């Protein structure tokens, strides 16, 4: 029910809708709830509406954090 997934904006239309790509499938998304969406952005798609934009820098930072935390723990484990 609350399933919402990142989808890539592949076309912007005049009627306030966007076309987004999701696992190779093109779907329509309403942009009524989100301003400033640009071509190529990733948005969270929920029941047909773009709800939030995904920030690529923050995504990278989060992935880096996972790697660092894990590496530190595994290294310590190896020493112990």
């Amino acid at each position, binding site marked *: 029910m609350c399933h919402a997934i990142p989808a890539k904006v592949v076309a912007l239309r005049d009627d306030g809708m966007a076309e987004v790509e*999701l696992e190779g499938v093109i779907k329509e998304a309403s942009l009524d*709830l989100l301003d400033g969406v640009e071509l190529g952005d990733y948005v*969270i798609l*929920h029941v047909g509406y773009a709800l*939030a934009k995904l920030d690529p820098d923050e995504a990278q930072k*989060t992935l880096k954090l*996972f790697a660092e935390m894990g*590496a530190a723990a595994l290294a310590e*484990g190896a020493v112990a």
Partner: protein
Amino acid sequence: MKYVEEFRDAELAKGLSAAIKAEAEPERIYKFMEFCGGHTHALARYGVEDLLPNNVKMIHGPGCPVCVLPVGRVDEAVALATQHDVILCTYADLMRVPGTKYESLIKARSKGADVRMVYSTMDALKIAQDNPEREVVFFAIGFETTTPPTAVAIKQAQKLGLKNFSVYCNHVLTPAAMRAILGAHTPEGAPNVVLDGFVGPAHVSAVIGTQPYEEFTTDYKKPVVIAGFEPLDVMQSILQLIRQANDGRADVENEYARAVTPEGNVKAQALVDEVFEVRDEFSWRGLGSVPLSALKIRSEFSEFNAELRFRVEVPSPKENKLCECGPILRGEKNPVDCALFGTSCTPDNPMGACMVSSEGACAAHWTYGRFRTELELEESA
């Protein structure tokens, strides 16, 4: 899929699992509640609980809108569909939720009611436009993520001058439910659920931002770490919660910064404010009546309010006495504690709401967790 696969990487998961094991102090027990059904699903589907040390326990909270909808509201929806000649539109999961005597919308449909599944509120509007001679009711449920699309639909209906569209509103509020859980006490005055913190909602927070959770850290001293729905997100948030617990801190932290900002989606919030106002109280499955925990349509939009437009007669609702959804939703029991689990109650034939949506604790456990419990039982035998 971008922004999905990277957050499911098995190597990174090993690392995070090691970090959690290293930081969880063996002499204490940590209990964290994941509020969202989306997290319950992720924990079960990816076996995240297997990667946690035994003293880190996850408690499944009430954050699945299908599961918390009380029987009475299901009965009313069924009555709406059967007593009036309306087209009742709703999201897929809702169709199978059992009401009193296991009447569900899908059963009503099999008896001739016009119940239609929609993917989006836009579909419901389209049905209303295409059927001007019929009344079309959208059965709306959901937390703060699903509410803005309903607000858009009502505004749109007004703009289009649609006279045959209305909404049966069951939208509920996350912070109020969290408050109800933390405030629930036994008759002796002890808290019902002892928690060390919350894995905070992902997409609800994309809408409401991180600010509404501050009260849980100040008033209740519970850490909240907002987490994305992928398994690594959940693991990282658990690690951050363990750290906070170890340090004796209670802060709001945002693991899901790629989609959640402190202020949230301001445009969506403004739309919701324009169309809805807070109800004095609302009844939740599992939590009972919770003050200021749901929304109703503002009087300016009364013509789109199905509750005012249609009178329905329902006998007093009855929950199945054996169903343990209530205590499960409050974090007090597990699916396996229910006598009906896996025998008379399965996802194909759900007896209670927690078995309907894949985000419900019972359905998640049925689909992904059963064998794990069997193994655990064998090991401990």
